[in-house]
């Protein structure tokens, strides 16, 4: 297996799927001539030409709608948002057009479209550029929501998302593009809707997704040295959610920490807690503890940003808390 970056894994997925199916095209700001604001689309313009790799004006609402229209009549658009922060301008097209078209038309018009781009906080980008959007997106029936953590997952899940005949919101970690991992040379896909147990242990379950899965794996490795064994359930797809993977783990460990990148109120973590308390009520030895971003807009200053973000230390404290150990979060 080759060791490649998350960015290159995505780039491979795009290239392979565009080669495989000439209805697939990529559209967004700076995807073509500039080779992508984060270089995810590097080389694609040269390979596929300007009809299939299309630079747009700054018009998120407009070009998301262009994607919806193209998908209605048989193309398979991949709409790149430079970051999901700007996609808010286009949420009407996701919520009111893409997610509802099949239903409103009584099953006539399905929507094979992928909306993708970086989500979540990078470093010191301040309030308007540092948001995680899975909690909002997963609220919507009629779409799927995918948040890969590793290069392997990124490639396999993006390929499945492009082949899916439904609208898929694909959230990449802005901080993950340079991370590396093993990716097979041969073709593979990863089914949407399946979690992966990324670490195994019987003391506590850490349920998480996206960039936070890396934090969780670190935490599990660190705690293993102290003799604390954690399951790390990486949901990968957050809608539909693999509830069975969550409950199987919690029924084994009897304790759970939910680690999420974004804000707390009505966040993805709350939903996971709901599934756990509903399905594992008699198995829980302690309340589920959530680790999330501080409930404030993201500050710019380095120290404040660090304090605002969920991290390994906070997660370790949470694990210790659900295990009623010293050093646990009070």
């Amino acid at each position: 297996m080759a060791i490649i970056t998350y960015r290159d894994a995505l780039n491979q997925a795009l290239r392979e799927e565009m080669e495989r199916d000439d209805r697939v095209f990529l559209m967004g700001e700076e995807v073509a001539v500039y080779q992508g604001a984060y270089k995810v689309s590097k080389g694609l313009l040269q390979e596929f030409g300007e009809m299939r790799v299309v630079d747009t004006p700054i018009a998120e609402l407009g070009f998301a709608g262009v994607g919806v229209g193209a998908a209605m009549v048989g193309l398979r658009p991949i709409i790149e948002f430079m970051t999901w922060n700007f996609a808010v301008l286009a949420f009407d097209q996701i919520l009111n057009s893409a997610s509802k078209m099949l239903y409103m038309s009584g099953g006539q018009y399905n929507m094979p479209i992928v909306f993708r781009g970086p989500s979540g906080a990078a470093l010191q980008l301040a309030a308007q550029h540092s948001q995680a959007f899975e909690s909002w997106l997963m609220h919507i029936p009629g779409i799927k929501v995918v948040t890969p953590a590793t290069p392997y997952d990124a490639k396999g899940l993006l390929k499945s998302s492009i082949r899916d005949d439904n609208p898929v919101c694909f959230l990449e970690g802005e901080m993950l593009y340079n991370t590396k991992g093993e990716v097979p040379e041969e073709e593979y896909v990863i089914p949407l809707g399946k979690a992966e147990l990324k670490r195994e242990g019987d003391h506590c379950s850490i349920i998480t997704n996206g960039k936070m899965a890396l934090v969780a794996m670190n935490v599990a490795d660190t705690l293993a040295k102290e003799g604390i064994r954690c399951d790390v359930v990486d949901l990968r797809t957050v809608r539909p959610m693999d509830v069975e993977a969550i409950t199987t783990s919690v029924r084994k460990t009897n304790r759970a920490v939910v680690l999420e990148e974004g804000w707390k109120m009505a966040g993805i973590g709350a939903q996971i807690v709901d599934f756990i308390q509903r399905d594992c009520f008699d198995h829980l030895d302690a309340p589920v503890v959530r680790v999330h971003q501080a409930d404030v807009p993201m500050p710019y200053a380095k120290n404040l940003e660090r304090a605002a973000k969920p991290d390994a230390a906070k997660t370790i404290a949470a694990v210790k808390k659900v295990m009623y150990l010293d050093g646990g979060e009070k």
Partner: protein
Amino acid sequence: MAKKKSVTRARATGKSAKADAAAVDAVRGDVELRLELLHSMLLQRRFEEKSAEAYALGKIGGFCHLYIGQEAVSTGTISLLRPDDYVITTYRDHGHALARGMSPRGIMAELFGRADGVAGGKGGSMHLFDRNLNFLGGHGIVGAHVPIATGVGFAIKYRGGDQVCLCFMGESVVNTGAFHEALNMASLWHLPVIYVIENNRYGMGTALERASSIHDIYERAASYDMARAMVDGQDVFAVREAFSEALTRARTEQLPTLLEIRTYRFMGHSMSDAVSGTYRTKAELDEHVKRDPIVLLRAMMQEAGEIDDAAMAKMDEEIKAVVQDSWDFADQSPEPPLEALYEDVLVDTTSDAREEATV
């Protein structure tokens, strides 16, 4: 994307470009066609009168926006389309659907919320769709379908086809951001989309002049270097003439057009809105009703001896029977089964499992 070459030449305003005018004029001699146009408009009228009745009886629920008074726009434009062209519109969609040939039964059953409705009762009045007719739906968020139309135009060009996408909208739409973003891209990329503004002078209770900083709204097209024209929407032939030019431009040059078609809505905005009183006077309404597009066409044909009272009455009877049949059909159609609630949320296919869709 293909770069824009010099297009100034090709972009004369609709007023001066006379592309297909001759072809259209020839049509004026075609009685058959005139009868078809009259039939199309009258079907829309009678269907909606019946819908209003059904609404009053509670057989139709939710919002219901009638098109009465504007029929020359739907008929004048859609009558020139090919079956493989696309149509997309707003919540005020009954007229367009009928003009495009959607089954009165299927529409009425949809309005009644029944299993045999075109969308199985899931869409209702505002969301008529028919894949077989390339009828891409009624859409409820003002402005939202305009970029979708641009996307359809993009897909046509992507496949190298010569179809067009016809996009209807109310005049309020020109003040939305979606309109602006969509028209800029359509022009920048040379897409075969015809944007038809049905300027009926009001967006709900707001007169155009109280919402738009310019009043000749087709001139907004200048911001996009787009061909444009202003058209009398009560004269079905004027509509056809202007639309025919736009059609040629779209088919042969893949260039978009913005048409402002001036018309008037004879009913309230929706069933709960009074026909006049709050934001427009009875006198103004009466003035406009004088230019009923159906009356105008009929009068012209009668004058030319192309139809007489008896023939007219016969056509009307036939149409009324069709409409009554749609009512009966809808009334007998069952409610959707409860399992349908959870169907059509997602499909379970992938690109591997579906045959190639045709654009």
